[in-house]
């Protein structure tokens, strides 16, 4: 690994807000979309690849994630390393606000990254677990469009799920 700079190919990714990110090929290949793109166009490696649905903030976080992912993989696959990887994942999502989490899910889906998508989906699920309906609305920015009668009807229909559970709390 002496002349790494010559061997490692760099790929440029251009985000939706026109920021260019230069990443190692190994990292770029983690993105399913990029990988497919290269499978179809092996010669196009010099041009920046446009990622229309990813903002630069998202992409930088995702690149961070990939870098650590590759680092973990390079080490042996013992359970302690797995635990460390899991702890890293938790740290990563813990400090994200809900907005960024949602953007990242979109990005991970667009980039076709299954593991990241799994992890993010689970994080979102954990965040809305045991929270009130109002909290879920706020979290996703959903506007309540039920009339009072409809709302009562829906509440009655779903009552079975909340038997023996404490009333809504935040």
């Amino acid at each position: 690994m002496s002349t790494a700079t010559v061997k490692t190919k760099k790929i440029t990714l251009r985000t939706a807000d026109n920021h260019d990110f230069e990443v190692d090929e190994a990292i770029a290949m983690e993105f399913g979309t990029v990988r497919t793109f290269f499978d179809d166009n092996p010669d196009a490696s010099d041009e920046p690849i446009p990622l229309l649905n990813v903002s630069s903030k998202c992409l930088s976080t995702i690149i961070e994630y990939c870098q650590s992912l590759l680092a973990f993989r390079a080490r042996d696959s013992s359970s302690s390393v797995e635990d460390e990887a899991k702890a890293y994942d938790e740290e990563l999502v813990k400090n994200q606000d809900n907005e960024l989490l949602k953007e990242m899910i979109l990005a991970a889906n667009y980039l076709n990254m299954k593991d990241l998508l799994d992890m993010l989906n689970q994080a979102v699920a954990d965040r809305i677990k045991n929270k009130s309906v109002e909290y879920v609305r706020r979290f996703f920015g959903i506007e309540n469009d039920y009339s009072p009668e409809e709302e009562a009807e829906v509440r009655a229909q779903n009552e079975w799920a909340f038997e023996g559970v404490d009333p809504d709390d935040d």
Partner: protein
Amino acid sequence: MEIAYSLSIALQSHQPLVIATIITLLSLLLAVRSFFKRPQKSNASGPATSAGKEKAKEATPSSSCNCSFSCNGTSDSAAFLNGSSAGPAEGPAEEGMVTADVAKVVAERQSGASMMEQLVPEITTHALSYLDYPSLCRLSMTNSLMRKAANDDNAWKALYHKDFTLEQDSVTPVNGWKAYYAATRAIMNVNTEFFNIIGDRSLPAMSRFWMKSDYVKCVHASGELFSGYSAVIQSWQLAFNWEQGFDFQVRDVRARVLPDIAWVTMKTYVDMDIAAFNMTNVFEFHHGRWYLVHHHSTVMLADGDVEQHIVHG
């Protein structure tokens, strides 16, 4: 006057043509007007439709981004768009640029989203599969669009298989999988109550639990059959009069629920696997609640060797 006269004649003779022309002009006008209105319109309608359909293709997060922008007022996002087209400026530009950038992203995402929602509808089921059943129910209570998504049949089927059993995969419940899940959850709770009653050794509770009919039957692990409500309750009284309390674990509970009847099979382990029983409970639904009508308990053979038992028996 001649001109006017000839004009009126012309108009009258070509009335259909005139009407057609007027209509064409009007529609052209409307079309042109709608073209100019489109940029703002797409912001408003975009989130609404994409929120609904995006749910169908992606996790709820996607709808949030669009919604939060539109919910805060289409005028805001329009202003942002205008701000971005004005180009990077100084002063409060930093924030303005970021929001402008994000607005551009949102605008692009909206168009990208509608493309994506056609490509990957299975993402929804995948994303919803991370939620537990209360969360899924709460999601359906937030909004009518979410309700459609959160009541997705496949999502509830997957949840059923995750929470209960992989069996019944080929079953098509009459009222959909969500209702089936709810009914199964209810029966599981009723069944758990059965064991709570046994643990409490409460005869009054057991008396309420059974259906007051002559066709109810109970076969205890001893092999004795009791038929009819009074005999059955008496048999439980005897069972409860034993001094030892039971410490048991119930595993492998499988339920099959139909509108009026349900049966549950389970394995019960007493006192840390010293004794194990295969049990079956059959319930009937009357007056808004489930009643136990049949209970059958058999000692589980230690090594599970059924053939040997038959040979010896």
